[in-house]
């Protein structure tokens, strides 16, 4: 009799707790988290901390740590939202804590790390992942659990074409970048008589590279009337022991301009091989990747000059933009190098999500998303000065500049109103450097 009573008691406790605790499921609205103002607000950051892009991932981590430092401690000398006070003012000074996870350049791991951060660490938002191929599954997890995701530097346009509700992205996508590239070539032809007609696209075989090429395929139709033609596309494996064959094909095709979608390790190998085989194009334009990494200049010295790419920022602009300069000072202390475009974009993602939480005045994911989608955020570290996410989650204010390496410095060369130097529309012979 007694035993049966115990069993019934246990069963009822079990059933009651199941009913009370049940709040999962994508069919329902996310239950508002109504805790008394928490001391620490956790935000997940999924980055490539090991693997082939680890050198970049580590720098992104430093940038996010700088954001955390600025938000949590009083920095009245920096003219940024959330810098003045310690913590988030609208949440009684609550601090933010970025919880880092390593996706190892593996989409499967990105997915499981996103799940772990949401379910175990109970983060209220996610940022990341640099690799578009990792951002894709991680943001899908966020969508499923109804957690806001702010991607910093992942450039594949496909990310904002999925109709996701909870996804936002700061960097210009490769759709916008590609048009930017063609417009720049047009500018070089018109202003400098550069005579650029044939284009080759060299891209790494992953989401980032493949999508960039698809964008070129799309935009070339518009720009054919300006005399442009794609003469070669070279897709190469993510891990290469050499780029001999790739460069041999490029040399054969003799393109005027090369569009590169490559990371730092492969990009460096390509430049060395171009030098060895004597490939001399008129312009090389790089999507957001290896070229923008300051290690590019360290690895190649003067061989890095004349390469161009779009960038959210460049060190030559530090003199003109005070907030950017101060952020760079903090960043340089950690990393030893100046902040670069992709790193700045991930810094921005950290600032924006914290700003959105603050403006929402709550850690309720629905309210945070609302803030993200409706507010315009101050971003005095970007040339555009602002960040605003459109209906697809894409940042409408993605003003990048076209930069070109001249004497080891990333000079802003276009559009003219931002330029710090004139563009050089042709490569010299390698021996003549």
């Amino acid at each position, binding site marked *: 009799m007694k035993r049966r009573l115990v069993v019934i008691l246990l069963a009822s406790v079990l059933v009651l707790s199941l009913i009370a605790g049940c709040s999962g499921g994508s069919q329902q609205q996310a239950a508002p988290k109504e805790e008394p103002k928490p001391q620490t607000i956790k935000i997940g950051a999924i980055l490539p901390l090991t693997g082939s892009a680890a050198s970049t991932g580590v720098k992104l981590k430093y940038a996010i740590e700088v954001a955390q430092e600025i938000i949590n401690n009083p920095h009245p000398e920096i003219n940024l939202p959330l810098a003045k006070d310690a913590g988030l003012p609208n949440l009684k000074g609550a601090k933010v804590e970025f919880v880092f996870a390593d996706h190892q350049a593996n989409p499967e791991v990105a997915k499981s790390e996103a799940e772990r951060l949401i379910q175990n660490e109970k983060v209220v938002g996610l940022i990341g992942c640099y690799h578009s191929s990792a951002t894709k599954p991680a943001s899908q997890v966020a969508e499923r659990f109804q957690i806001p995701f702010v991607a910093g530097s992942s450039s594949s346009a496909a990310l904002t074409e999925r109709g996701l509700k909870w996804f936002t992205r700061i960097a210009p996508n490769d759709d916008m970048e590609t048009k930017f590239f063609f417009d720049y070539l047009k500018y070089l032809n018109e202003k400098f008589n550069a005579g650029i007609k044939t284009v080759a696209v060299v891209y790494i075989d992953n989401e980032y590279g493949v999508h960039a090429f698809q964008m070129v395929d799309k935009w070339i139709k518009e720009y054919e009337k300006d005399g442009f033609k794609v003469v070669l596309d070279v*897709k190469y494996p993510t891990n290469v*022991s050499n780029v001999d064959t790739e460069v041999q094909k490029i040399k054969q095709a003799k393109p005027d301009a090369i569009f590169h979608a490559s990371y730092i390790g492969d990009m460096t190998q390509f430049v060395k091989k171009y030098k060895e085989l004597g490939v001399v194009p008129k312009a090389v334009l790089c999507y957001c990747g290896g070229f923008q990494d300051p290690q590019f200049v360290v690895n190649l010295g003067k061989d890095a000059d004349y390469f161009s790419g779009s960038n959210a920022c460049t060190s030559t602009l530090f003199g003109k933009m005070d907030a950017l300069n101060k952020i760079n000072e903090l960043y340089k202390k950690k990393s030893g190098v100046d902040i670069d475009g992709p790193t700045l974009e991930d810094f921005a993602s950290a600032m924006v999500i914290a700003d959105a939480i603050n403006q929402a005045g709550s850690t309720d994911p629905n309210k945070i998303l609302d803030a993200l989608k409706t507010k315009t955020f101050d971003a005095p570290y970007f040339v555009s000065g602002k960040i605003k996410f459109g209906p697809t989650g894409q940042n409408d204010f993605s003003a990048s500049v076209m930069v070109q390496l001249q004497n080891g410095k990333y000079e802003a060369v276009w559009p003219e109103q931002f330029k710090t130097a004139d563009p050089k529309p042709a490569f010299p012979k390698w021996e003549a450097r």
Partner: protein
Amino acid sequence: MLAQVIASGILMGFIYALVAIGLTLTWGVMDIINFAHGEFLMLSMYSAFWMYTLFRTDPLLSLPLEALLIFVLGYVTYKIVIKRVADAPGLTALLATFGLSLVLRNLAQFLWTPNYRFLNQTLVTDKKLAFAGIVLGLPQVVASVGSVIMTLAVFYFVQRTRMGRAIQATALDKATAKLMGINTELVYGVTFGLSGACVGVAGALMSTFYPIHPESGALYSLLAFVIVALGGFGNIKGALQGGIIIGLAEALGGYFLGTQFKYAIVFLIYLLVIQLRPQGLFGW
């Protein structure tokens, strides 16, 4: 351009072969698959890098040091890691070397950061040989020639020296080898060390043109597995021939069929060979 493609393919092939020879020695003699082989290569490259950065020593001059260093690493790995698990079920040795490879890779990243390093001013940097419309970078030519020399040296050592014969005998029949007075434990240690010396030399040679990075060894080690299967386990000549085949397959396949398929073609060849001739093309 075809001649250029073939020439580059053969040059790379010799380098791949040297890496594969290291692997085939341990696999053929001891029946041990050393999953940390690529990491030994990576450590050799880092040694060359640090010798260059700290002491201004050109990799071609510090090469003997790298060979010795990785020889010792191989020998010690045998004594400390492999010997302990020699009597455990076969899978344990595999897991042990796999674990070692993870440890070494992460240790490298921890100690030296994941940044890609390049050696930019060695004796051979930026020089090239050009003839008959073919351009060959001097770093690759020297690396290739160096690999061939080391390959011949290893071959001579195994075929003609006392220790070399002892290695062969131990591989064929361990118990009878003992009856010859051969210290089979020493043979195993030396074989592992020799395997290390091969990648020690290869790493020093490659450091003149390849990015140095905690993951640098991974792809070469993977290709080495394919070449060992192609050439036959324990077969040095087979590894050389296999290396050239793979180098050419990568170059020609990549050029004509598409660069994104470079390695797919290599692995396809591997699958075909192990299906049709499991002992390798030149297997014993």
